[in-house]
C-alpha cells in the first residue's frame, strides 16, 4: 500500500540521536493504531498541519480526568486512529521503577493501546499514547491491578512531580520524593475528580537548583533550602585553590549577595551567613568543600505557570521558610486554604497566579492568613496607589 510509505519520517531515522520514528515503527509492527499514527503523521509532515481534534468527552468510572480524548480529523483515511485517546498514568515519585513494574505496564498497554508511551509527560505522568473509547475502562482496570493509577487532567490537582532528592543527591534539603508521595496519596480526590475552574500544579525540588523546574511550572513550588549557614571545609578549599581553581572569579565574585570572602593570605573562605541568599552557586562549584546547612526546610513559591492567558509567570515567594516534616500538616493546611480561596474567587481558566494578580497579593495573603513579608517582593511598590480599608482610617 502506497499510503504506508513514510519517506519524510524516514529522514528522522537518520542521525545519531535516538529516533521516535523508529519507536513508532517498532510498535507499528505489532499494533494497527501505531501504524495508523505513523501514516497520519506522515500526512501531517507532508501537509504541515496536525490532524487531531476534540470529540466527545471520554473517561473512566470513578474518575473525572486522567484521559485526554483525541480523534483523527481524517477518520476515513486513518480508521485505526479514529479514536486515539491518551491515558495519563501517575508516575512513582522520582521516576524510579522496578523492571517488573515497567513490564507489567507494557503488558497491559500492549493489550489495550498503541504500545507507545511518553516516558514521561511534561507534568510527570507516564503518557500512554492512544487507545479507543471502548478500551479505556478495561485498560484502566487492568492497570489498577498491576498497581498503576491515573494522573490528573482538567480542572484538578495535576500529578505531582519532584527531583530525585535524597534518593541520590547530597544537596537535598527536604525529602522531595516522600513529600510527593504523601501529598499524592492524601489528595487523590483532588487529582482524580476535577472540581476546580482550572489546573493546579505542585512540584518539589530538593534544593534551589530546582531540578524539577518547579518555580517555572507549578502553581505551588516547594523548594528545599537551609536557614543556618553553608558549611565550608577549608582544607578542601585549599586543596582546590592550590590545584589552580579560580575561586575568586568562579565563586567569590559570583555570589549574588556578596556573602563570601576569601582571605588570600590565610587561604580561607568565610561566609556571612545572614547575607547568604542560598543560591547554591558556591555549593555547586565546590561540592567537596562547601555543603548546605543543617537546619533545613523549604521556600514556597506561588503562581508559576506558562503563557496562557496573562503571560508566563515564575512563582514568587509565598513562605520564605517552612519546615517540611512528615506528615506535612502545616503545608497541607496552607495548600487547602489556597485552593479554597482560588476555587471561590477564580474565573474560568484562571490560574492562581493570575487570580492573585487580579485581586492583589496582599488580599490573598490576608485571606489565607499569612503576614506580608519583604522577602515576598523584589521591591516594594513604586506607585502611590494604595488601598486603605475603612477600619484603618478615622
Amino acid at each position, binding site marked *: 500500500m502506497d499510503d504506508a510509505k513514510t519517506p519524510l519520517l524516514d529522514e528522522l531515522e537518520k542521525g545519531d540521536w535516538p529516533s521516535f520514528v523508529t519507536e513508532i515503527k517498532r510498535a507499528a509492527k505489532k499494533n494497527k493504531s501505531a501504524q495508523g499514527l505513523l501514516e497520519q503523521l506522515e500526512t501531517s509532515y507532508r501537509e504541515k498541519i496536525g490532524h487531531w481534534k476534540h470529540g466527545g468527552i471520554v473517561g473512566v468510572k470513578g474518575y473525572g480526568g486522567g484521559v485526554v480524548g483525541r480523534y483523527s480529523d481524517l477518520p476515513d483515511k486513518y480508521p485505526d486512529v479514529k479514536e486515539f485517546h491518551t491515558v495519563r498514568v501517575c508516575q512513582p515519585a522520582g521516576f524510579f521503577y522496578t523492571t517488573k513494574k515497567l513490564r507489567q505496564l507494557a503488558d497491559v498497554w500492549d493489550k489495550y493501546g498503541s504500545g507507545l508511551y511518553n516516558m514521561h509527560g511534561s507534568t510527570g505522568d507516564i503518557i500512554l499514547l492512544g487507545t479507543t473509547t471502548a478500551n479505556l475502562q478495561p485498560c484502566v482496570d487492568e492497570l489498577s491491578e498491576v498497581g498503576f493509577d491515573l494522573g490528573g487532567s482538567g480542572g484538578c490537582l495535576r500529578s505531582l512531580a519532584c527531583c530525585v532528592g535524597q534518593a541520590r543527591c547530597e544537596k537535598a534539603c527536604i525529602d522531595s520524593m516522600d513529600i510527593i508521595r504523601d501529598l499524592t496519596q492524601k489528595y487523590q480526590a483532588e487529582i482524580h475528580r476535577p472540581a476546580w475552574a482550572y489546573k493546579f500544579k505542585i512540584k518539589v525540588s530538593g534544593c*534551589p537548583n530546582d531540578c524539577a523546574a518547579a*518555580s517555572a511550572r507549578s502553581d505551588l513550588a516547594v*523548594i528545599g*533550602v537551609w*536557614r543556618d549557614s553553608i558549611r565550608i571545609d577549608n582544607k578542601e578549599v585549599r586543596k582546590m585553590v592550590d590545584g589552580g581553581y579560580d575561586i575568586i572569579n568562579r565563586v567569590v565574585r559570583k555570589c*549574588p*549577595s*556578596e556573602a563570601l570572602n576569601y582571605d588570600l593570605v590565610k587561604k580561607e573562605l568565610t561566609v556571612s551567613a*545572614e*547575607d*547568604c*541568599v*542560598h*543560591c547554591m552557586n558556591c555549593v555547586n562549584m565546590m561540592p567537596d568543600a562547601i555543603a548546605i546547612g543543617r537546619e533545613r526546610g523549604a*521556600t514556597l*513559591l506561588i*503562581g508559576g505557570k506558562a503563557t496562557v492567558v496573562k503571560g508566563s*509567570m*515564575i*512563582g*514568587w*515567594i509565598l513562605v*520564605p*521558610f517552612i519546615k517540611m516534616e512528615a506528615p506535612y500538616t502545616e503545608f497541607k493546611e496552607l495548600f487547602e486554604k489556597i485552593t479554597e480561596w482560588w476555587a471561590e474567587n477564580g474565573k474560568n481558566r484562571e490560574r492562581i*497566579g493570575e487570580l492573585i*494578580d487580579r485581586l*492583589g*497579593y*496582599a*488580599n490573598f*495573603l*490576608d485571606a489565607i492568613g499569612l503576614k*506580608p*513579608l*519583604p*522577602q*515576598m*517582593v*523584589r*521591591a*516594594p*511598590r*513604586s*506607585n*502611590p*496607589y*494604595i*488601598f*486603605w480599608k*475603612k477600619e*484603618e*482610617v*478615622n
Partner: protein
Amino acid sequence: MAKNDFGPPDFREMLPPVIKKNYGKWVSHDIPRPGVLKHTSSTGDVIHSVRVASPRLVSSDWIRDISDIADKFCEGFVRFTTRNNLEFLVSDEKKLQPLIDELDKKDYMIGGVGLSISNVVHTQGWIHCKSAVTDASGITKAVMDDMVDYFTGKKSVPARLRIAVACCVNMCGACHCSDIAIVGIHRTIPRINDEGLARACELPNVIASCPTGAIRPRPKDKSVDIIAEKCMMCGNCVVVCPAGLQIMDPENDGVSIWVGGKVSNAKGGPAFSRLAIPYIKNEPPRWDTVTAAVNNLVEVWIANARPGERYGEWITRIGWEKFFKMTNLPFTDKHVDDFTHATTTFRSTIQCKF
C-alpha cells in the same frame, strides 16, 4: 502694545564674561571647601561657584538682597541650580573669601555641593495648589532644619542624597525617582456631591478618569457611585470633576515616604523610589514624625552604606528585608504592589535573607 512670543531672556546675555570666554572649555573641577566648586578651563581660567541654600519661595526683598551681593562680588551675575539653590559665580578669586564672609555674616547657608544633602525639590502645597494634601514648603523647612549639617558639609554622607516633597500623588517634581521622597496621600474615598456633579461634570469623562474602573454611573441622579473596594484614593476623578467630588479629609490625609530612587545613569541607571512608610499624619507646623522618620532613614544609611553608595544602591546590595529590619520599619500589605505591573515586583526566586 506688548509683543508676544519672543521667549525668555537670551542666556548669552546673562553669562559672566569668564563663562562666555570659557564656554565649552572647562576641563576639570574640584571642591576646595564645602559648598564651593572650582572649575578650571583649558585656557587656564578658573571660576568659583559658591552655592547657597534658598527657600525657593522668596520675596522681592530677597531678590534684591542677593542682587546686591552679586553686584558686589560677582560682576552682577547670579544663577540658580536645577534644585533651586543659588550660585554666586566668582571670576576673581580674590573676591571669594570676602564673598563667603559676607554670606556668613548675612546668615546665608553655604553648601549642597558634592557629597551632601542638597536642597529639596518640592511643590506648591497649601501655598498655592488646590490639590495639596499637605504643605510641601513646611515639610521641606522642617526636614532641612534637621539636615543642615549634611548640607553645609559639617557632617558627611556616603554619596549624594536627594530629597523631594510632593503635596499629592501628581508628584510635581522627581519624587518618583528620588533617594527619599515625601508624598501627600489620601486615605478615604471621594465624597460625592450629586448636585455639583450633575451640574458641572461630564459623566463619561468622570468615569473614564478612574484608573481602576471604580466609578459607575448613577443615571437617575445624573451622578455616579464609587465602588469603595476598587478606589485607591488617587484623586484623579476629583481633578476632572472638582464640583462634584471632594476628597480632602484633614483627619485622614497625610504623607507617605519613599526611598531608593535616582535619575543619574552612574553605575545603575535611573530607578523608581519605593514605598518605605505608607502613612504619617499631617502634623503642622513641623511634621515631627515625618522629620524623625527621614532622620532615621538618613542615619541608618549613613551608618551602613559603603563609600559612594547611593540610597537605592545600598538597599539593592543588602536586600529589602534587611532594610526594613535595620530601619526598624514594619513591612505591611501596603508595601505589596497591586497596580498594573505588580507581578513584576514579586520575588520570583528563592533568593532571600531570613
